[in-house]
Structure formats: C-alpha cells, structure tokens
C-alpha cells in the first residue's frame, strides 16, 4: 500500500502472549469454565493480546515491542506480517 505522499506504509500485527511458565489467569479461568458451558475437549488455553498497526518503518517494530507494546518480564511477542 502506498500513502498519498508515496511513502510505503505497512500494516503489521503483533501477537503478545504470556511467557511460558508465567501464570495466565485468563487462560486458566476460560479453560476451567469451558466444560460446564458445553465446550469439551479444549486444553492449554492461553490468552494474550493482538496489536495491529500501520507504520512507515517496519524496522522500528521490534524496538516498539520491546519498549512499549509488550512487557518483556512477563510476555513474549511475535511479529506477524499480513
């Protein structure tokens, strides 16, 4: 996609999930609740965040994840193109 001024502008997607070994209260609660709701055979639920954005300079994305988008103490991130 090209912006009116001709700069490239990329849509990117970042997946952020609780680090392995870190408690994921949301995933645990959802997984435990599912059978009673009639959804069976589901396991290992992990809940994270999805961040989508448009940016001029995709090279910046990694630094953005490190500094703002993800909390490196408790989260891993994965940059996915689109």
């Amino acid at each position, binding site marked *: 996609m090209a912006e009116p001024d001709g700069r490239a502008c990329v849509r990117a997607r970042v997946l952020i999930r609780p680090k392995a070994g870190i408690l994921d*209260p949301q995933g645990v609660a959802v997984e435990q609740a599912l059978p*009673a709701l009639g959804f069976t055979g589901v396991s290992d639920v992990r809940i994270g965040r999805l961040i989508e954005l448009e940016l001029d300079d995709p090279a910046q994305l990694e630094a953005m994840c490190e500094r703002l988008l993800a909390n490196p103490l408790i989260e891993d991130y994965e940059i996915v193109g689109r």
Partner: protein
Amino acid sequence: MRFGVVQFPGTCDDRDALLACRQAGEAELLWHGDADLRGVDAVVIPGGFSYGDYLRVGAIARFSPVMEAVTAFARAGGPVLGICNGFQVLCEAGLLPGALLPNLERRFICRQLAIEVVDAGTPWTCALAEGQVLSIPAKHTTGRWYAPPELLGDVRVVFRYARDANPNGSTDAVAGVASAAGNVVGLMPHPEHAIDALRGSVDGLGVFASAAAVPAGA
C-alpha cells in the same frame, strides 16, 4: 415479594444486593450452578467480576445453568435487573441490547454520579418519576454502553448520566437500558449502594421499591 440474587464465582456485590432487596421485600441468593429460580418473583444479577471477567465482561457467566432459567423467566415477563457486571451478563445473554466496552479513560472509576430516570415504565422504575435525578455511585472499568447506530433507535433507554456525569463515554450518555418489553433492565451505576443515608444516599431504594410495587405475576 421475593427477590433472588444470582451468585457467580467472582460476584462481589451479592450481599449488597441482598441488603437492598430486603429493604423492599424478602431476598435470597441463587447459585449459578442451579437452574432453579426457587419461585422468586424477581431476579437481580449483581455486580462483581464473574469468572474474573477474564475473557470478556459477562461472557462466561451467561452460559451458566442459572442463566437458562433467568432467560426463560425473562421471556415469560419476569422482572430481571442487572447491575454493572449483571448488566454486562444480560447484554452478553442477548436479553438486553448492546454491549459494554472499556471506559474511554481506560481505568476503573468509582464515583458518586447523578443519573436521570428516562423511562418510568419498567418494573424497576415504576416508583420513580421520569426526569427524576438520582445520586448513585458507579464503579467499573468496562461501562461504556454501545449499540450499533442501526439498532440505537429501537433501544429503550431507562437511565442516562446527567450532564457532565458520563464517566465512561457511553453512547448518548446511556447508563441503563431495558428490553423491548421493559421487564429486563440493566444499568452500570449501583442502586444497591445507595440505600442508606449513612453511606451517602438513599436514591437507589426506588429501584427495588419499584419491583416490589408491581403485583406478583403481573
């Protein structure tokens, strides 16, 4: 008049709601795992964080066995009130229009607010007057009521935040809505926390008195 107050894992304002209902009648707790409403005349779904609100507010609680019974009760015209998390559950369950989104300020807010009664034609507002302004606290992170524009025209708005009092960016300052038939009402502010002058306000009493004033089975 016998009220049933629904208790989910994570419900916090259940005892408060019981207290409020008892100002207007009898009240007992209804357990989420029970599909039996035990013959109560009105159901209150109180505030809190059912299932931690971890997936999405109200999303998990609405599948509980008690909600099947509440849904049948509501469809049969029984009075159902959802407060805060209860409002969120009723929206998720499709018993009330719209959905609740995160506050524009992205924070939990706990604040005494002025709300205006817009529709006194529901079993939860019939003892109040349209235009009456109530001082009632609100406390939530996800209270921005939203309905898509095409649905908005058909929504029965029951409460609005008074001017400058909208704490969450809710569409048209909507604080509470009703089902088309009016018997199901949900609101974000907490009338059960405005029932004693010692604790700041008695303006919430009218909500429970309204339900008690409706003849049982009507």
